[in-house]
């Protein structure tokens, strides 16, 4: 069974004052088909974990390992990781002016699969996936993320997750900024992907509302650059009611 395995991961971010340690020993194993939720206070390092896994050059891994089916992910370039089956739905998707969504999707799909998608079926597949996510067909001709609303950007991320069929997807606050309807539409997209491809999901969120649609198998509490507690779905409810007080301020201090 495909497995994404994170062992004792330490990560620093490049700042003007030099490298600043953010992640302090993250351990996490995700098997395909599993959904893991990560919840934690602002600044605890959740996006840093997501970016480091995707290989963002600003983040330096100082120690630890990440493997995908035993393959060393950290030795791979950003694009190699994506082609190996890793997908990151970003908290703040980037605008790419002048590059149409249609062109972008086709180029990325070709890169990931190692061959161009069949012309006839690809167009239909994209159309259907856009319709499922309530994305207007006119978006095909628009520049990637340019002028998209917050919710449209998030739907565009999930559209890619459905089309690219990754083995592991990290969803960084895909639910934030979505209204109730959009939240449902996006959640359905994630669930479709889970059903169709058995993708393993790492879902970063602040709220339990998305977890009512996307059922997590495990919930991890992320505090000060590491996982402070693990549990089942019931842990999420408790966090939403009680907050993170019991984790913060004990032991290590907040770095933010």
């Amino acid at each position, binding site marked *: 069974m495909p497995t994404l395995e994170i062992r004792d991961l330490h990560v620093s971010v490049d700042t003007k004052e030099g490298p600043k340690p953010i992640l302090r020993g993250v351990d996490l194993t995700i098997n395909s088909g599993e959904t893991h939720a990560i919840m934690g206070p602002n600044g605890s390092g959740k996006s840093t974990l997501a970016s480091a896994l995707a290989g963002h050059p600003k983040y330096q891994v100082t120690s630890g390992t990440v493997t995908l089916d035993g393959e060393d992910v950290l030795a791979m370039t950003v694009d190699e990781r994506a082609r190996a089956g890793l997908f990151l739905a970003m908290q703040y998707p980037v605008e790419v002016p002048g590059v149409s969504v249609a062109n972008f999707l086709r180029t990325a799909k070709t890169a990931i699969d190692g061959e161009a998608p069949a012309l006839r079926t690809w167009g239909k597949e994209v159309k259907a996936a856009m319709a499922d996510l309530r994305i207007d067909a006119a978006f095909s001709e628009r520049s990637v993320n340019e002028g998209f609303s917050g919710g449209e950007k998030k739907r565009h991320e999930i559209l890619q997750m459905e089309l*690219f069929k990754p083995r592991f997807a990290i969803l960084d606050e895909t639910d934030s900024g979505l209204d109730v309807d959009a939240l449902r539409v996006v959640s359905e997209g994630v669930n479709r992907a889970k059903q169709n491809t058995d993708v393993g999901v790492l879902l970063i969120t602040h709220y339990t509302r998305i977890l009512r649609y996307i059922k997590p198998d495990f919930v991890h509490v992320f505090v000060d650059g590491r996982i402070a507690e693990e549990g089942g779905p019931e842990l999420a409810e408790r966090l939403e009611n009680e907050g993170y007080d019991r984790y913060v301020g004990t032991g290590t201090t907040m770095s933010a």
Partner: protein
Amino acid sequence: MAITTDHTRAVADGAHSHGVVPAGSRAERKTSFDLADIPVPTGREEEWRFSPVARLQPLFAEDLGAGGVLTTVVEAPEAKVEIVGKDDARLGTTGKPGDRTAVTAWNAAQEATVITLPAEAVASDVTSVRVEGVTKDVTAQHLLVRAEHHAEGVVVIDHRGDAMLNQTVEIVVEDGAHLTLVSVQDWTDGAVHASSHRARVGRDAKLKHVVVTFGGDVVRITPDATFTAEGGEVEMVGLYFADTDQHQEHRLFVDHAVPRCKSRVTYKGALQGVGAHTVWVGDVLIQAEAEGTDTYELNRNLVLSDGARADSVPNLEIETGEIDGAGHASATGRFDDEQLFYLMARGIPEVDARRLVVRGFFAELIEEIGVPSVRDRLIASIEAELEKSMSVITGIAPAAAGEAEQA
């Protein structure tokens, strides 16, 4: 447009200028047909302060030859081509030279090539003027493109080869005419080219003026456009791509001398390699009597690698309050590593991702040019330029490591 506009990042060596107001009004700039009125510049003058005057020196001389370029015109069936003496009364009607190269070009040229789109004719094909550099003899050239009243057509001036060329291009767009004039600078390395474009735009006439600069050591184009009657429209579009040690300068001047005319200026450039230098200066003057003027100018530069420098100076002078609209925008940005990361995180290799971003940067502009043959040529040239930078990137280091240093 989401290119980075943080000026400190834009050019690492701090050599970026923006919005510097030139000394004195553009209206007061000395213009003359007389050599004695416009002396050889030192490089400190407002109009030369960004230019490599040493490399342009041969073009400042009073005596310039004529044999350095071979000019071939393939005209539309409706168009007329003549070679005339410099005493032809149709020459010199678009305004006086405004800087040293313009005045030496005017005085040195002994004859001129005149292309006429006759009154009310609609050209069925592009008229192409091929200017090929054949020797490095310093050469003066004079072209006049006339669109008589209600004529329509496209004229493409295509510069290739290696030359030392000092050129005048006069453009007359009579009442109701629609002219697209394209000047492509696709010189080989070593070429030095100065060109003064001077346009007159008549009542309800429209000029689309397109400049595309890729090749040559030093290219300095100064397009001036003046409206002579109401209802005129000028659209100036420019695209440039500067490599290592290339100097590409585009200085525009749109003179709103009469009421109710419209001008749009859009120039975009990319730079790569140490010593690549681009200069864009956009002067727009709205004179006191030019009520109802509508103008907007924009310049964007994309810096692809360290050691390149883009100067961008929009300058809007408004002498009347009764205008419809006037604005400008200028931005110079580093290649955006976040865009690169986003595309690579979707499996797209770095080389392809860079290509997508740069193509995207120029995409809208290429569509605006609207001349299919020029568009295809442009896309191919941009690809060729990118090929150069890709070999640099792929030659140095693994993608991830190379990017980490730049971030």
